[in-house]
């Protein structure tokens, strides 16, 4: 099992979700986050005071999948999020030790789907 974390541009979320659906990956957690990559942020100015730390709005997806779904998920995220411009985001993949469905207490591969 793998745990996939992707940070993408907020306006790409709908496309990424659609691509994931097409690959039959339905379980996903999405959150709104602030972050900064190589493209740096855009500093805001309030009454002529320039803000020091400039972060940009990003969207974070978290997906837990069985090993044979990893490539599908990565393809879907890239397919939906890639624009070719700087700031498209990143995908991180981590080994997942365990997964438990709270309702049935099923574990592992059974629980994850």
């Amino acid at each position: 099992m793998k745990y996939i974390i992707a940070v993408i541009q907020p306006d790409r979320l709908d496309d990424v979700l659609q691509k994931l659906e097409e690959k039959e990956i339905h379980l996903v957690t999405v959150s709104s986050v602030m972050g900064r990559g190589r493209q740096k942020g855009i500093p805001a100015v309030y009454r002529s005071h320039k803000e020091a730390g400039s972060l940009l709005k990003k969207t974070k997806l978290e997906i837990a999948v069985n090993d044979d779904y990893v490539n599908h998920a990565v393809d879907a995220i890239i397919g939906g999020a890639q624009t070719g411009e700087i700031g498209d985001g990143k995908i991180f993949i981590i080994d997942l030790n365990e997964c438990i469905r709270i309702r049935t207490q099923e574990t592992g591969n059974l629980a994850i789907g």
Partner: protein
Amino acid sequence: MKRLMKIKNYKVLLTALLLLAGSAVLFAADAAPAAAPAAAAVAPAAAPAAAAIAPASKVNTGDTAWVLASAALVMLMTVPGLAFFYGGLVRKKNVLSILMQCFAIMCLISIHWVVIGYSLSFGPDVGGKGLIGSLSWAFLNGVGLEPHDFYATTIPHQAFMIFQCMFAVITPALIIGAFAERLKFSSFCVFTLLWATFVYDPLAHWVWANGGILGTAGGMGALDFAGGTVVHINAGMAALAAVLILGKRKGFPEKISPPHNLPFAVLGAGLLWFGWFGFNAGSALSANGLAASAFVVTHVGAAIAGITWAVMDYIFNKRPTVLGIITGAVAGLVAITPASGFVNLAGAFGVGIGAGVICYLSVAFLKPRFHYDDSLDAFGVHGIGGIWGAIATGIFATTSVNKDGANGLLYGNPGLLWIQIKVVLITMVFSFVVSFILFKLVDAVMGLRVSDHEERIGLDLSEHREAAYTILE
């Protein structure tokens, strides 16, 4: 530790109560012989209203309706106008403390006003020196439903009183912008009551009362239509005293987060603008041409100052900002306030453009240069804008708008400009010095700042045990 805090809080409550009790005692001493008439005055008010008003032939219904509506408009300026304007500009963890301070001022000063404030400000002059009103109108004794032959010739005296009450409320509320995010609530309450008594009320008397030393009725002849000196310079100088005594917020300037809710600030600025029509046009105290003229120049002054600030933003920062345009509009409203009953359209343009440029420069360059933390620019906008407005009145005033006013510099009377400058200086010194003393006094007795820890977790939680927003359900 907790016990100690409790005892401290007790002291605060006691101080506030003593202050109110003190005023009551003063009233009793002063008005002991008048106690019977006071009771008599209350009785008819309780009787059918028609009977009380019937002989008042001088009351003009149109004027009364306008002044009462204006009073309600000015009330709206403090809560929610100023509350949301300031509330949107602070960090999430302090927004409730701002709303609370504005709301508490509304409650505290309204009571203070009917108990002693109105009498100190507008009551019969003590000793004919034009310095302070006596307490003979305390508890609105003798302030009835008949017109007053100086202050309110065509409206019930109480209509004038309640209109003025809203001015007394918003003025200390403006100072909140200076000490936002670090002043203890208890100290804030005590300071506000002291400031109303020893700064606002005397100054209102000097400028507006019959026989006041600075005003047009037997004084130096300064023009202040709706409160440029009494409200804005006054609050602005108190703001400056506050920032000098309180010091900076932790992390200022690099580590202070941006305004947490600019849409709130826009909402607040819009409500301020809306309420300002009551503030300025209502100050005509009549539903007449002068009120219409004040309404027009108020609107134009705000509009041109808003655009001016946006243009300044564009020049210096390459982008016109939302916070900029609303700050500019407020600066324009501040500046047009003393001038609103004396200037024409050309004057409104002059006052508004000047406000946009001067206040912008003070906020963008003066503040960073001197490293003072005027959190929400109470001094930069109200102090500087008020000073400019009072001086601009001496430049742009014309008797063609108001025959009871005077001509300014551009209309061949440099003398008025000199009077305005003198009165600005007197107001600045008086307000700064007495506010400084009061802040020091409160600091010595009960402390002004919250602890570092409390400042870090925010005043909403530390002072009020509440949170404005729930992030989790």
